[in-house]
C-alpha cells in the first residue's frame, strides 16, 4: 500500500480531525517514525490548545440581544469607553426592564423611558449609603455630572458601574462585570475604563464626605 506523503498540511488536518480513519492512521504512523514530523505535530497541537484555553471562556459568557432601539453610534472615543455585553444573568438580577448590554454615552445623553433603571435593592443602597461604607454594594465615588445629575460609582457583587440620579431614579451610565465576587474588593476607580468613563462625565471635583451627606439629605436632587 502506498502511503500518501505526510507534510505540514496533512499534519494540521490530522490535528483538526479532518482525515478519514485510514488517513489518520497513516499520519499517526509517519509522525511516530519521524522526530521532525513529531516536533511539528507537537508545535501545532500545543498552539491549538493554547488558543482553545485563551479563547474558550468567552463563548461561555451568556449574552443578551441588543434592543430594537439601537443607540446612535457615538464617536470613536466614547465607543471605546463604553463596556458592552454585561452577561445576561447580571442583567436579569440587577437591572429592571430590558437590559441591552449597552450603556449610555458617558455624558450628556438625555435619559429615556427605557434607560437602564437599576433594580430597587441596588438603587436603595445608592440612595442611602455613603462612600466607603462596607456592604454588598460599595460606593467609591460621588460626583456631579456635567448635566448636573449626581452620579455614584459603585462595586456590587456582579456589576461595577456608574449610576446617575434622574427624576425617576438611578440609571446606569457605565457598567462592567463585577470585580468584587472574587473576594477582594477592588477599589472602584482602578479600572482604567471606569476611570475614563468618570473622567468624561464629571464636572468639577468629587464630593467630599460633607458634600455627600448634604446631597443625600436633599435626595440627590
Amino acid at each position, binding site marked *: 500500500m502506498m502511503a500518501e506523503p505526510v507534510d505540514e498540511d496533512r499534519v494540521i488536518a490530522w490535528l483538526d480531525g479532518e482525515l478519514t480513519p485510514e488517513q489518520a492512521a497513516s499520519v499517526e504512523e509517519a509522525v511516530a517514525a519521524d522526530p521532525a514530523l513529531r516536533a511539528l505535530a507537537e508545535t501545532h497541537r500545543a498552539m491549538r490548545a493554547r488558543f482553545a484555553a485563551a479563547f474558550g471562556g468567552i463563548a461561555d459568557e451568556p449574552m443578551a440581544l441588543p434592543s430594537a432601539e439601537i443607540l446612535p453610534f457615538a464617536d470613536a*472615543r466614547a465607543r471605546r469607553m463604553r463596556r458592552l455585553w454585561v452577561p445576561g444573568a447580571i442583567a436579569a438580577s440587577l437591572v429592571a426592564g430590558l437590559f441591552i448590554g449597552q450603556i449610555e454615552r458617558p455624558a450628556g445623553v438625555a435619559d429615556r423611558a427605557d434607560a437602564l433603571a437599576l433594580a430597587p435593592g441596588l438603587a436603595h443602597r445608592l440612595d442611602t449609603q455613603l462612600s466607603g461604607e462596607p456592604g454588598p454594594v460599595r460606593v467609591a465615588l460621588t460626583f456631579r455630572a456635567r448635566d448636573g445629575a449626581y452620579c455614584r460609582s459603585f462595586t456590587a457583587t456582579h456589576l461595577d458601574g456608574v449610576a446617575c440620579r434622574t427624576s425617576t431614579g438611578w440609571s446606569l451610565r457605565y457598567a462592567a462585570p463585577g470585580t468584587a465576587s472574587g473576594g477582594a474588593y477592588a477599589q472602584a476607580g482602578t479600572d*482604567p475604563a471606569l476611570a475614563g468613563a468618570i473622567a468624561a462625565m464629571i464636572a468639577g471635583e468629587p464630593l467630599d464626605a460633607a458634600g455627600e451627606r448634604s446631597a443625600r439629605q436633599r435626595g440627590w436632587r
Partner: protein
Amino acid sequence: MDAFETALIRILPRLRRFAHGLTRDAADADDLTQRAAERALKSRAQWQPGTYFDAWAYRILRNLWIDTARSRQRRDKVIAPAEDAEAVGAPGDAEAAAERLFLMRAMDRLPDEQREAVALVMIEGLSYAEAAEVLEVPAGTLTSRLVRGRQALAKMLGGVNDG
C-alpha cells in the same frame, strides 16, 4: 422569543469569541459583536429557515469586519490603543486576559484572509467545510490560508511557549 432570536442568542457568545479572533483588542471585539447582532436582527428576513444559521451569522460578523478594515486602520493611527484597559476589563483573571490579548495581537499580524480562516477553525472549531461555507471560498483555498496562517503563528509564538 421566536426561533430566530433563540438561534441568535445561542450563537452570540461564539460570535463574540470569533470577533476576538479577528480584532486587536476586546473593545473592538465587543463593538464588532454588537454591530453584528444588530445587523443580524435587521437582516432577519434574509435568513432562510432550514439553512445553516451559524454560517449566516458568522458571515455577517465577518463581512462587517472586512467592511470596517479601512476605517479600523485609520482609527488605529489616531487613537492610542487602550492597552491597560484590556488586561483589567475582561472577566476572569488578568493573566488570562493578558494571554488572550497577546494572542490577539499575534493574530493581528496575519493577513486578513489567513486570520479569518484561523479564527474560524482553530478558535471556533468549525470544520474545514463549515469554514469554507462561511467565507464562501473553495475548500482548497480555505486549507491553504489556514495552513499558512498557522505556520506564521507558530513562528511568532515559537520562542514564547514551547510545547
